[in-house]
């Protein structure tokens, strides 16, 4: 399972062990989020006006930082491809770039929370805000875990080459990061875009 050192990519005779595990685990993460979405759609179906009247959101700000988060997926993938080619320096740069983009998103989430709480829109305001904090909170926890994983990855990639598990871990974190970004599309659409009444 050693990674190719030369520039060309070749097909190994079996998938990486870690990726096989990560994929099935991400499947279970999908089920976790589908439980939250089940709550969202049920509560929304019971509401006459959605989001409830008086809900103040900043669509533009949230939208900009969503784009930042989504853009961090391709940058991370550039890092994975660089590592697969054996270019560890470039891989590290791409990971740092993705990390900063994810960090910006998280900072904005916390800033938004601060603002909303200041306006009196807390989890106990109504079911919409309960869902808002649970969904963004759970997703933010995933983003944070991804950021921590990136930090550890950078630590692991420091120093001389020769760690055979490195590329597999990098791929695994990549799959996870794509998944987290993909989930944000759903959550963002539900919380900011879907409107009735």
């Amino acid at each position, binding site marked *: 399972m050693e990674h190719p050192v030369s520039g060309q990519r070749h097909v*190994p*005779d079996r998938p990486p062990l870690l990726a096989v595990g990560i994929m099935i685990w991400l499947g*279970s993460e999908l089920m976790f989020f*589908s439980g939250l979405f*089940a709550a969202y*759609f049920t509560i929304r179906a019971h509401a006459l006006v959605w989001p409830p009247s008086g809900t103040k959101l900043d669509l533009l700000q949230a939208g900009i930082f969503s784009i930042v988060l989504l853009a961090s997926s391709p940058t991370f993938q550039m890092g994975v491809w660089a590592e697969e080619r054996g270019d560890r320096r470039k891989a590290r740069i791409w990971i740092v770039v993705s990390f900063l983009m994810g960090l910006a998103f998280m900072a904005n989430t916390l800033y938004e929370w601060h603002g909303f709480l200041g306006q009196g829109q807390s989890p106990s305001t109504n079911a919409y805000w309960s869902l808002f904090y649970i969904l963004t909170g759970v997703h933010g926890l995933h983003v944070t875990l991804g950021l921590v994983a990136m930090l*550890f990855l950078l*630590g692991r990639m420091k120093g001389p080459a020769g760690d055979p598990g490195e590329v597999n871990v990098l791929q695994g974190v990549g799959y996870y990061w794509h998944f987290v970004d993909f989930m944000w599309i759903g959550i963002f659409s539900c919380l900011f875009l879907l409107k009735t009444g």
Partner: protein
Amino acid sequence: MKIEANILVGLAVFFAVVSLGYWFWSYEPAGTAMLAGTVLFGLLPGAYYFWWAKRMKPRTEDRPDATLKEGAGVVGSFPGSSIWPFVLGMGLFLVVLSLVFGTWLLVVGGVITLYATIGVTAESRRGGTV
């Protein structure tokens, strides 16, 4: 890998039918959302395994005629023993308990968890495991 992939993709197809049937029969959102999640649960790993099944040769465990000789060799690297799972588990335990017993536990648990995670990563790096 083909059978493995087919099981998961088959699961996705089955639940696609069930969730469509359920939605158009009941218009009940909670169940439909979770059934749709189950479709994705099968589809995501299923598609990945299918992709691999397409591009690699069948492994020795996929072929009924494979001999033990063919499969001999390095299987993977497995840690012999490690203290870090225990430390990590205790750290997470304290983090979880902090939700009931107060935030000070979160600090202790967080430090232990971080320490254990560093330990696991360093160990992985030395041993080449994941």
